[in-house]
């Protein structure tokens, strides 16, 4: 990358040939692609990693939250007087103390740290106590008196459609529908007219939750000099920083947010949360550190998990399986607040076009408010649901057309380096090799449709973004920043705002810097996720970190290399292209003995130009889409996955077991192969849970809408006894936008698991369960229908009538479109977020 003046280096010497673009000598990678230990592995296996709940400070108080027992009610009165005088209690606060709303998206600032006048789900917090012990705080909750006026509760999106009044929120597109989207790319009716076959199918994807092993925890400290510090298990310290500044009305410069290593996130720690703001406020009021650790039950109330989603898909195909048009409708159950929901809704319609060619495409999406814990981003954010629908429907289409489902997909792949109907720019695209690998590995051609009754194979594919093309708050600043400091002793420290949630983001920074500077990654110190110390990275979400922080780290390291190279080249009286960094040394590539240690090289550079520190940053390329809503879906690079699942189905019990899964993932390029393997296997595991057992269920008795299973025991997730064998293939098709070609892996491989299992169940016993989780009782119900000669299917029966807005019509690239909607005259709004002037922050 280009040099800049800020690094303090002299003009870089050119090679004798005078080639301005000559880079350093190419050597085989020493770090990239290797299966190294993660930089934090030893801390984690020795119990030395300090999670938020492991922190304590002198004179620390403990906080507990009083939560609503009603799904929907007005708060008539809150009396804290008895609680305030209870033993050990130092402060009690209510919604009046924190009146300013917040929320992750600028368009959905609909949450309060404590509900001021209305509760919207069982578990919505109303009051908070800080006391000298957790026991005292808990006991004091019983002394807070709250009078509620109970309101009618809305249990489902269908009810929300049918019940526009009273509204759960006083904003949103229509009654209790939070968001309505209608986008048409090309004219789908033309495509359906050209089709040899048209299928309509309905699918339902049940809601499930992240279930990180670590409950959310936060510790806040207030200093009398007016500085607030909070340590929290958050995936998004930058957005927490913003929310705290807004709600507490403090200058951001006086707030320090430190994201502690997350004990699992999966999207569940990506919103700013009530409890984080509450402990900050209580610390300011009491002048003492205040800590909260949520109970497991409360984690289920925080939720932000997978939106339960009803889907209707109409797809037209030619006899050879070529898609002529697709019309997709989704209805999301949003729960009580906005959260990421507007983005989630767009995501249920965004990525249908990136795997197989879809020349004409229409998407209608709606998100309903209901009186349940708010849904948000869970691993795959809004895309596992439509991917399930799409991949199961393709399986049905293939059967209808008499085609092999693997072959049908291979014939109609979205080509690389293209633009889709909805204006997503695709770079590298390795889905073809992925399909070929799992087909070969699973012996698909001789086993699909040929296994004995009760055993089956199913195939599905998917794609996911490597980071979102636009930030949540639209601005022109980088999405990720890195500062790099080279020490005279030869150590290097990387500062970056990224958040380690177990995915290995700290290690990626160290590996990339070590690769460029020829160091051992364990000589690189990584300082992350501290708003006082580290430049902004937007957070660990949307699979953005490896690509974005990786590119920022790469730029900073290359700039440091240039600075050091210049000094060494002068000393050795060599042209700069002959200077190479490897094995902790800097030397002449043509005479390796002529050189010095990296530490000596840093000393030379420091003597020549002062402290050796560089910066790097990353901003994604601009997407060609210009229509309103084009902000969700673009990414610098798309990963691809193909999966074959083998299942057994017990016809007596309906129990589906998955003995084995073959998965191929187009990673672009592995930065650390072992870490990539871990993400793939973990995705298969989580997908298996979603396919077979995980489900947020609420008791609807007398409209109470109480969470049925807010515990780890009863919310079923796979143990070692349910986990399948996995055969993993890593397909490396480097993407020019990724650091060393790397793309994402944290979320994509989850997506094909659920449809692959559903398709395998059909192969095994000839029944379609068009919804997840595929529980034994649904399988049994379908088998009974089959035995009676009825349609052997279990799934949703209809899609509610929704008053859709006028569709936004966008000509496709092959219709000569320019990325804008018809009639769009003003400068485009390319994001769902409201464009607003940036302040300092």
């Amino acid at each position, binding site marked *: 990358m280009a040099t800049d003046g800020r690094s303090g280096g002299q003009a870089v010497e050119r090679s004798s040939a005078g080639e301005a673009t000559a880079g350093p000598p190419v050597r085989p990678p020493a770090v990239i692609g290797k*299966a190294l*230990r*993660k930089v*934090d*592995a*030893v801390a*984690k*296996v*020795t*119990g030395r*990693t*300090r*999670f938020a*709940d*492991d922190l304590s400070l002198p004179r620390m108080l403990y906080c507990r939250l009083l939560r609503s027992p009603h799904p929907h009610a007005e708060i008539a009165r809150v009396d804290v007087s008895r609680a305030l005088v209870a033993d*050990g209690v130092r402060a009690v606060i209510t919604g009046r103390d924190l009146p300013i709303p917040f929320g992750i998206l600028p368009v959905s600032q609909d949450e309060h740290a404590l509900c001021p006048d209305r509760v919207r789900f069982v578990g919505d917090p109303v009051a908070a106590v800080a006391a000298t*012990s957790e*026991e*005292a705080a808990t006991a004091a909750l019983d002394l807070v008196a709250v009078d509620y006026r109970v309101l009618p509760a809305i249990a489902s999106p269908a009810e929300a459609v049918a019940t526009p009044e009273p509204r759960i929120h006083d904003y949103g597109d229509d009654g209790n529908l939070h968001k309505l989207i209608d986008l048409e790319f090309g004219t789908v009716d033309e495509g359906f007219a050209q089709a040899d076959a048209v299928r309509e199918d309905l699918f339902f994807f049940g809601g499930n939750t*992240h279930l990180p*092993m*670590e*409950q959310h925890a936060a510790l806040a400290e207030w200093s009398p000099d007016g500085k607030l510090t909070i340590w929290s298990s958050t995936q998004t310290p930058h957005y927490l920083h913003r929310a705290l500044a807004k709600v507490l009305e403090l200058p951001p410069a006086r707030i320090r947010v430190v994201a502690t*290593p*997350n*004990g*699992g*996130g*999966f999207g569940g720690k990506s919103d700013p949360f009530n409890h984080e703001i509450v402990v900050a406020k209580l610390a300011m009021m009491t002048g003492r550190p205040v800590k909260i650790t949520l*109970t*497991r039950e409360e984690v289920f109330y925080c939720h932000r998990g997978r939106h339960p989603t009803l889907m209707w898909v109409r797809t037209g195909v030619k006899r050879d399986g070529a898609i002529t048009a697709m019309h997709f409708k989704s209805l999301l159950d949003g729960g009580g607040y906005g959260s990421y929901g507007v983005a989630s809704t767009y995501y249920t319609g965004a990525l249908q076009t990136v795997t197989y060619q879809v020349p004409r495409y229409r998407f209608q999406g709606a998100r309903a408010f209901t009186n349940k814990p708010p849904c948000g981003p869970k691993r795959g954010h809004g895309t596992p649901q439509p991917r399930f629908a799409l991949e199961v429907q393709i399986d049905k289409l293939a059967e209808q057309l008499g085609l092999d489902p693997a072959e049908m997909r291979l014939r109609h792949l979205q080509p690389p380096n293209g633009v889709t109907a909805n204006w997503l720019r695709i770079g590298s695209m390795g889905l073809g090799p992925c399909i070929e690998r799992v087909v070969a*590995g699973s012996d698909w051609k001789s086993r699909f449709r040929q296994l004995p009754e009760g055993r089956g194979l199913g195939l599905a594919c998917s794609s996911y973004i490597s980071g979102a093309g636009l930030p949540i708050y639209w601005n022109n600043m980088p999405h990720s920043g890195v500062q790099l400091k080279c020490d005279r002793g030869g150590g290097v420290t990387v500062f970056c705002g990224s958040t380690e*949630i*177990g995915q*290995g983001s700290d290690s990626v920074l160290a590996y990339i810097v070590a690769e460029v500077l020829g160091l051992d990654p364990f000589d690189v110190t990584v300082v992350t996720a501290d708003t006082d110390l580290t430049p902004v990275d937007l957070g660990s979400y949307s699979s953005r970190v490896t690509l974005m922080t990786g590119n920022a780290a790469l730029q900073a390291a290359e700039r440091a290399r240039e600075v050091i190279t210049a000094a060494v080249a002068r000393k050795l009286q060599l042209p700069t292209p002959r200077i190479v960094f490897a094995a902790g040394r800097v030397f002449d590539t043509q005479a390796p003995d002529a050189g010095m240690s990296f530490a000596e090289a840093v000393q030379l550079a420091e003597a020549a130009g002062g402290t050796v520190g560089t910066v790097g940053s990353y901003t994604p390329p601009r997407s060609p889409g210009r229509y309103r809503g084009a902000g969700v879906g673009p990414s610098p690079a798309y990963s691809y996955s193909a999966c074959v699942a083998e299942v057994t189905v017990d016809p007596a019990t309906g129990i589906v077991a998955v003995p084995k899964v073959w998965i191929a993932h187009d990673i672009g390029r592995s930065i650390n*192969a*072992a*870490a*990539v*393997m*871990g993400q793939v*296997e*973990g*995705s*298969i*595991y*989580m997908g298996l849970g979603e396919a077979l057992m995980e489900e947020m269920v609420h008791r609807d008795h007398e409209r109470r809408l109480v969470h049925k299973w807010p*515990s*780890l*025991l009863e919310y079923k*997730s796979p*143990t*070692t*006894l349910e*986990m399948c064998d*996995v*055969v*993993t*293939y*890593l397909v490396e098709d480097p993407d020019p936008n990724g650091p060393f070609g790397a793309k994402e892996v944290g979320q994509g491989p989850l997506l094909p698991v659920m449809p692959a299992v559903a398709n395998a169940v059909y192969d095994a016993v000839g029944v379609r369960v068009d919804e997840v989780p595929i529980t034994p009782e649904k399988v049994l119900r379908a088998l009974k229908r089959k035995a009676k000669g009825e349609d052997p299917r279990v799934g949703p029966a209809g899609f509610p009538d929704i008053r859709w807005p006028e569709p936004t019509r966008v000509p496709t690239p092959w219709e000569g479109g320019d990325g804008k909607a018809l009639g769009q005259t003003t400068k485009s709004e390319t994001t769902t977020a409201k464009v607003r002037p940036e302040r300092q922050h």
Partner: protein
Amino acid sequence: MTDPKAVIALTVNGEPVEVAFAPHKTLLEVLREDLGLTGTKHGCELGECGTCAVLVDGKPVLSCLVLGLTCAGRQVRTVEGMVRDGQLHPLQAAFADLGAAQCGYCTPGFLLTAEALLATDPAPTRERIKEALAGNLCRCTGYLKIYEAVELAAARMRGEDAEPAPETLYGN
């Protein structure tokens, strides 16, 4: 809160300690809050997840379900006790080498449960490992790297010069 504190003597990670605590506290709370051993995690407070597993007299127990008082005179082993003379235990090394710890929150519980398994069965089958670890939940790894790490550590503890299979680290 105003209860008189109990005082017990026990052995923690090979060292005798005396500790005073409110008598209703669980072993998990005593370890984390009164002995400062925060390596042991809590995940559910109800005995559902295995993150709080420690060894008492060599057997894995869920420390959130054990009263601290019942541990008087007993041998308790936590993750902090696994490093010896500055060297990782073979299980810890194998977990680090294979990426069997991702977020690391469940890791201490898995390590101690696996250590107890290997003490009774130095060459466990894959099925035996799955059974032994069935009470520990991990949301990150899908367990496969954990099985492979236990197998690798077991082999190394038997004195074999074992290395991870290439497909474990790099795929097929």
